[in-house]
């Protein structure tokens, strides 16, 4: 693979994926601009707003991924923190749970610190083993047991969903050298971001064009079988086409793409179910056209850990 711009230090693979992302963004911006001029509609404006947000998100993702591993780590850490902070106000926590929330926030830097310093075993155990017992105990120790079953289930869940999953992306930087693989952890990270981002976009696109049969009518009426199958198949193909960012062979890349797409869909569906139970459409207003951090990153955090473990199993096992 040749570098697009030979002077630049970054590897050829990274240059190519940035080029591809830029092409997609430019093409969709132009397409929605023309659509808005020809047939002004609510959908066209929404697509324009969403694409504008994608530009900002892609810029943030690419810059934080490429500058320095420490910057990547801080960026991911902030995302985990923002996800927790967006989830807790929706849950009607009481005064007793307030202090426990502080402990939950404090697990974020610890978990990412374990990833940064390469303590893999402790990293894998910290939240599901240690915090899984400690946080319910903190809730019990206040002596107020009314509604405790609810908070005992909620708090460890929030940590697993938004901190444990996302932090696997920081652990990608601890993978050892693989002979003949030059894109590095930055390449793997961009690969996952690309797959999950495209998964959301393509499921939306297939659903809007062909969608008829809802897959989860009571949870999220906009998700259709056509969108799900079309999205998963396209992502499997894209994963194979983009495998120059990974050390995987064709079949491994296809399986990774398939699992990532399914996991992204599941994460999305889980978040939709939670939001429907609470009675809100979006969990926040941070990203125009998309909602909050949680609305955008539900797929990412569900797909991150399966992605890491598949890569590890295929290439480093």
């Amino acid at each position, binding site marked *: 693979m040749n570098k697009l711009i030979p002077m630049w230090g970054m590897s050829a693979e990274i240059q190519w994926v940035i080029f591809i992302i830029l092409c997609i963004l430019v093409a969709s911006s132009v397409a929605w601009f023309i659509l808005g001029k020809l047939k002004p509609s609510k959908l066209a404006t929404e697509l324009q707003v969403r694409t504008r947000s994608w530009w900002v998100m892609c810029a943030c993702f690419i810059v934080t991924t490429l500058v320095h591993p420490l910057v990547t780590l801080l960026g991911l850490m902030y995302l985990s923190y*923002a996800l927790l*902070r*967006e989830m*807790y*106000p929706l849950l009607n926590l009481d*005064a007793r749970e*307030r*202090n426990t*929330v*502080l402990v939950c*926030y404090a697990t974020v830097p610890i978990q990412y610190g374990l990833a940064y310093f390469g303590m893999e075993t402790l990293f894998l155990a910290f939240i599901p083993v240690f915090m899984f017992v400690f946080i319910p105990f903190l809730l019990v120790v206040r002596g107020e047991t009314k509604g405790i079953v609810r908070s005992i289930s909620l708090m460890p869940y929030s940590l697993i969903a938004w901190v444990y999953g996302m932090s696997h992306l920081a652990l990608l930087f601890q993978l050892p050298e693989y002979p003949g693989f030059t894109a590095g952890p930055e390449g793997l990270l961009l690969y996952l971001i690309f797959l999950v981002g495209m998964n959301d976009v393509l499921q939306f696109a297939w659903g809007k064009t062909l969608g008829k049969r809802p897959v989860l009518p009571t949870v999220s009426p906009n998700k259709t079988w056509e969108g799900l199958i079309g999205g998963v198949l396209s992502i499997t193909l894209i994963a194979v086409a983009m495998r120059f960012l990974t050390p995987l062979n064709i079949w491994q890349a296809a399986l990774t793409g398939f699992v990532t797409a399914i996991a992204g869909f599941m994460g999305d569906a889980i978040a939709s179910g939670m*939001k*429907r139970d609470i*009675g*809100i*459409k*979006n969990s*926040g*207003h*941070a990203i125009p056209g998309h909602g909050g951090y949680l609305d955008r990153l539900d797929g990412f955090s569900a797909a991150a850990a399966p992605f890491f473990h598949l890569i590890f199993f295929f290439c480093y096992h």
Partner: protein
Amino acid sequence: MKKMLKSYEHSDLSLPAPASWRRRAMLVFLYKFFWRAILGVVIGLRYLGVKSNVPDGPVIYIANHNSHLDAISMMTVVPRHRLHLTHSVAAQDFFGNSFFRKWSMENLVNAVLISRKRGANDVDPIEFLDGLLRAGRSLILFPEGTRGVPGSMGDFKRGVGHLASRHPGIPVIPIYLDGLYRNLPKGRAMIVPFGGNLIMGEPMVFSDEDVDQITSQTQKAIENMAQQLRDSNRI
């Protein structure tokens, strides 16, 4: 304008002294950098509808009140060159009874303290705030008069009506503060980040409405903003 200033000079109200450049710089650092960063990045407060073209000159900002963070978050949306001329109105009986509270309110929050329960020979608080507006200062008012029940809005007291009807040219800017009470509830000392929204409405200018009309219209405006926020996110 000159006449007005004169009448203020002859009155016996003690208005806060004009701010030195040190104090101005400190207020700009505190609210435009320090608190803006804490509120935006750590607490995750979303600023909605905040315009840079807030009318230049004295303005009355009003908002619903549930937390000590309310005045701080409103100071961060005041234009930079008006920061030292903008005073939050705080209760003497709560903030005046300890030296630290009084000092930090007057110096760090740029607040003025007024008494909620008036003795026989005290200055009328409305007269005092009136003098501030005449001297070209802006006010941050919480017309509910107290932080009240978390997450719910009480009825407005008539102070805002009195002030706005005496100064028909001065716009009233309604601000709805959503969720700040979770970050720092009444009776707690520790801030736990939970996000929130600060929504700034269109400036309201009154000409010949009476005190009660202005009071109820401003309350309506903020209630509508709250309702709109809830509706925009309903399934």
